[in-house]
């Protein structure tokens, strides 16, 4: 086995791969948060709850469809509808009510915390506060090369590929379609967009739907590697948020990079320091980024990037 400075190369590669896999999930969650932040300037804490509901719906649909992959599609549709509903039925009416008041900025964020609590409670009532298994046909056991087995499994590969596909789809939608132009314009300058004839309210609903779909992919892909419970995605929300901040909160590319960077960082901390400090590390990274480069790695200081 190849060693450099006494460190085993196999372990480094393995840790890197695992980091990219978990980082892909953080990227998806960060993408969901960034899409909402860009369209309505709200940090959506409810995203963890929305992803829980869509994942449970995926889990339920699998009982009838007998296919994990079809159930992932069901979860994506459910996540998109839920995201659209939160914006159309809660956030938009709320924003209209508080517009111009002292609570205009903070009320929507508190509302998303409220929705998170509500969704968790409802999920607990429907599915119980127990752990269930949502299983994928792909093996969770690591790939074997000759006599060595690594931690990286086919499900990990599916996570990386799935996240890459979602990112690519959003890149195409945002940069090459009329809808993408409307989404970007509405997030940068809603008033000018309105004056140009864009139905900004509808575009925002679509932005929330895209975010819900991205969160649903994260939930449906990561859950087979662990378990499902009403709060099993809460820590993912924290990681997604840290990844989004690393990426500048406003940048889709930044969300992708931020997630992978964070995933790799976590994997190495887990491998070489220990599990007990990984979440401590997340908050240290968060505070460090906010103090040193508050605009994130993709942001210009004082400005916003595309």
């Amino acid at each position, binding site marked *: 086995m190849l060693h450099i400075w006494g460190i085993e190369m196999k372990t480094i590669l393995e840790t890197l791969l695992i980091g990219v896999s978990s980082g892909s999930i953080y990227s998806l969650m960060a993408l969901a948060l960034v899409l909402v932040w860009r369209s309505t300037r709200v940090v959506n804490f409810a995203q963890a709850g929305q992803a829980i509901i869509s994942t449970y719906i995926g889990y339920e649909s699998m009982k009838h469809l007998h296919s994990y992959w079809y159930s992932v599609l069901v979860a994506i549709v459910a996540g998109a509808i839920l995201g659209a509903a939160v914006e159309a039925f809660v956030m938009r009416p709320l924003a209209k009510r508080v517009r111009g008041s002292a609570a205009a900025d903070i009320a929507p964020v508190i509302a998303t915390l409220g929705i998170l609590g509500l969704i968790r409670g409802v999920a607990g009532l429907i599915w119980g506060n127990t752990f269930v298994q949502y299983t994928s046909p792909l093996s969770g056991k690591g790939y074997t090369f000759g006599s060595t087995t690594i931690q990286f499994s086919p499900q990990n590969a599916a996570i990386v590929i799935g996240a890459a596909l979602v990112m690519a789809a959003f890149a195409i939608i945002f940069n090459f379609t009329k809808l993408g132009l409307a989404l970007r*314009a509405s997030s940068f300058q809603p*008033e000018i967009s309105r*004056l140009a004839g864009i139905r900004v309210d509808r575009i925002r609903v679509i932005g929330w739907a895209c975010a819900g779909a991205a969160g649903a992919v994260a939930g449906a892909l990561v859950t087979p590697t662990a378990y499902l419970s009403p709060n099993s995605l809460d820590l993912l929300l924290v990681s997604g948020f840290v990844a989004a901040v690393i990426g500048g909160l406003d940048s889709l590319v930044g969300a992708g990079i931020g997630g992978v960077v964070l995933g790799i960082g976590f994997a190495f901390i887990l491998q070489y320091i220990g599990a007990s400090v990984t979440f401590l590390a997340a908050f240290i990274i968060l505070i460090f980024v906010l103090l040193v480069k508050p605009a994130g790695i993709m942001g210009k200081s004082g400005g916003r990037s595309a």
Partner: protein
Amino acid sequence: MSGLVVRDLQVAYGAVAAIRGVSFEVTPGELVTIIGANGAGKSSLLRALSGLIPVAGGSAMWNELSIFGYKPENLVRAGIVHVAEGKSVIPELTVEENLDLGGIWQKKSAGVDAIKAEVLQLFPRLGERLGQRADTLSGGERQMLAIGRALICKPKLLLLDEPSLGLAPLVIEEIFSAIARLRTSLGLTVLLVEQNALSALAIADRGIIFNLGEVVASGKASELLADPVLRASYLGY
């Protein structure tokens, strides 16, 4: 009566009245300019007419249709297009994307491509910079881009808020002569809000002078320019 008819319009921000009962008309095809100092209520008037802010009272009709209570994006579809103050473009988007924004909600058959070609003929400098981000443009080019995007929305009533703001005299001349040509070639009705009274009255049919949210004088552009009292107290030259 067709055209724009505003009656007893009132706009307030909280307890502060910005427009205190203003009435005027703009007949179809006419270019009317509203002149006044900062804080006269000119921008508030345009923002109310384009649906950006709610009104506190009064009415406004465009071709016999009451326009208050509609969203800006719906008024755009009715032909009321507002070019807001301060070179109203989206800096993060390219020049072409800024133009296309005015057309993406229209049907393909609406002839958006033909209008875009006309706009690029009118402002050739935009054509040379289609792929550049709008924030790399000069102030004059941004104003051209904002007007160009408004034209792609196929306006019947064009509301222009201080197109001369922050521009050099030669550029102002270029923009104003473009506005004058446009309204004849496209048969536009134009409501032009300006602090630059001389340039605005030079191309306008009529002028209305605003002060502290009220109309203090109105008349033919040539007559306003010739009135020594108005010149001294409101036109500032």
